């Protein structure tokens, strides 16, 4: 049992009935993030299951992306703890890969596809180590997994939105992590890209890795994901899609913004 697990157990003053934090690829405790005086994420707890594929779902402005960024320490946490495989995330960053929103970068940046993928090897290459053939081949293999090997030497601005998203995924694959955090990987991509991405993510899960996606398309949650985390600033519900992704929970998450008729169209599991 790790130190942290012990501490948690003793803090609660009772025997550990819950799974140990060390077993969870990502454990979030009372995480609060604020921009200015308004909380963007308020006291969210979550325990991501090992080798699961979890969708973070909620309305616009619910703090989904902010939650991911706060987990990674890209935006400051006001309070709360983030444990990855039982350790503070800062100590195990090499086990975490992150795919930001495609629209968050300037695709006119002067660089080639292969160079973007090689950025995934930054932790290995450090400041001055030269990129060798082996590194290049690994980057090419990652591009191949997303069906983009032929585009290695293209300038990134020449890619379509879907191709850009695949390049971002290839960069995350190059990180060879155990926990993949993706921010809206399916936003604005073509059907072929969506298929390619979901195949890669499912393959990752098959390799006993854990995938967490901020996801906006309610219609595909049941098909793509095993677990779901519903948030709207606060956590609404968390658990397997079959029991958690229910009309009632969605109504709570979206409030009046999600019409009953819309919910009826979703292939919701019968609780």
């Amino acid at each position, binding site marked *: 049992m790790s130190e942290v697990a012990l501490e948690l157990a003793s803090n609660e003053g009772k025997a550990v009935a819950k799974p140990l934090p060390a077993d969870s690829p990502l454990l979030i405790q009372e995480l609060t993030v604020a921009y200015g005086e308004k909380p963007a994420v308020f006291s969210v707890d979550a325990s991501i299951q090992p080798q699961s594929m979890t969708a973070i779902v909620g309305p616009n402005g619910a703090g989904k992306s902010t939650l991911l960024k706060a987990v990674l320490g890209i935006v400051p946490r006001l309070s709360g703890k983030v444990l990855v495989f039982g350790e503070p995330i800062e100590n195990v960053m090499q086990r975490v890969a992150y795919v930001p929103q*495609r629209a*968050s970068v300037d*695709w006119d940046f002067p660089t*080639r596809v292969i160079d973007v993928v090689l950025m995934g090897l930054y932790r290995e290459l450090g400041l001055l180590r030269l990129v060798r053939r082996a590194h290049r081949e690994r980057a090419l293999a990652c591009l191949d997994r997303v069906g983009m090997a032929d585009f290695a030497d293209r300038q990134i601005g020449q890619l379509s939105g879907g191709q850009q998203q695949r390049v971002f995924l290839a960069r995350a694959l190059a990180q060879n992590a155990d926990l993949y955090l993706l921010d809206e990987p399916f936003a604005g991509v*073509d059907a072929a890209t969506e298929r390619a991405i979901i195949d890669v993510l499912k393959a990752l899960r098959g390799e006993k890795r854990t995938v967490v996606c901020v996801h906006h398309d309610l219609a595909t949650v049941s098909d793509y994901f095993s677990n779901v985390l519903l948030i709207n600033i606060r956590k609404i519900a968390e658990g397997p899609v079959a029991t958690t992704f229910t009309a009632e929970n969605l109504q709570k998450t979206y409030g009046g913004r999600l019409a009953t008729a819309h919910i009826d169209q979703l292939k919701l599991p019968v609780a």
Partner: protein
Amino acid sequence: MGAEFVQLSLTPILIGILAAIACALPGNFLILRRQALIGDAISHVVLPGIVVAFIVTGTITTWPMLIGAAGAAVVAVIIIEAIRRVGRIEPGAAMGVVFTALFAAGVLLLEQTDTSGVHLDVEHALYGNLESLIWFSAEGWGSLLDPQALAGLPPELFRMAAAAFIIGVLTIIFWRPLKISTFDEGFAGAVGVPTTIFSLGLVIAAAVAAVAAFDAVGSIIVIAMFICPPAAARLMTNRLEIQVLWSIVFATLSAIIGYVLAGYGPLWIGRDHAVSAAGMIATVSGIILALACLFAPHRARIGAPKEG
């Protein structure tokens, strides 16, 4: 080209080249980060900082100037923040107001200060004194090998060379994290690049270049070199590595062509007075940018990604 060139033109051209490169290097990253105007801003804020540093210390040596400029930058940031909060003005406008106001205050302060003993006045602030940085002790190309003559090189040359060297070395050492954090700050943070330190470091590098160049070449060149060579270089290539090399080439060309045109150009067209080298160097950099816009291979920018 003989002794006269070495004595009168060699050192100004070298100083011009070094100043141009020192500013163009951080300029590449500032432009890609859409912070090109920070270079402009810094070169404005530098003036009151330097004047205050001179009033306090009575010298215009490097360290008091750097500290004065840094102090002025901090004051500028505080005033901008205050104006933005109290006045509810958008940040761009707040910046514009503060930098121009501080520069104007620097000019007033400079006028009221007795700087007769040193090279510090309003004209210097704008166009520097490139033409006056001559190598008195040089007698010809042979002087480059003569230790006694070398000792007489203007100190601005060493100051500028040191700044360009430090900025160049830092750019090479931190190339990888600098590139990653410029392209994708979120991802950079997630792979352990201290992004705040890098964006701050970039601004500091720009400030060092601006302060070092300020005294020798004036703020006109500083402003032009932060933007024109990197912007023209971007149109030559789609790879950052090559872009930076092009920016060095363009900065060097601007300095050489600009200085030569300013010194000899008027004679060629039958006028007797040389024109300001700083003004001409900045103009040449602008012409290079215009030519790049018209003829460079990657001027057709791809623009917004297509949804597909």
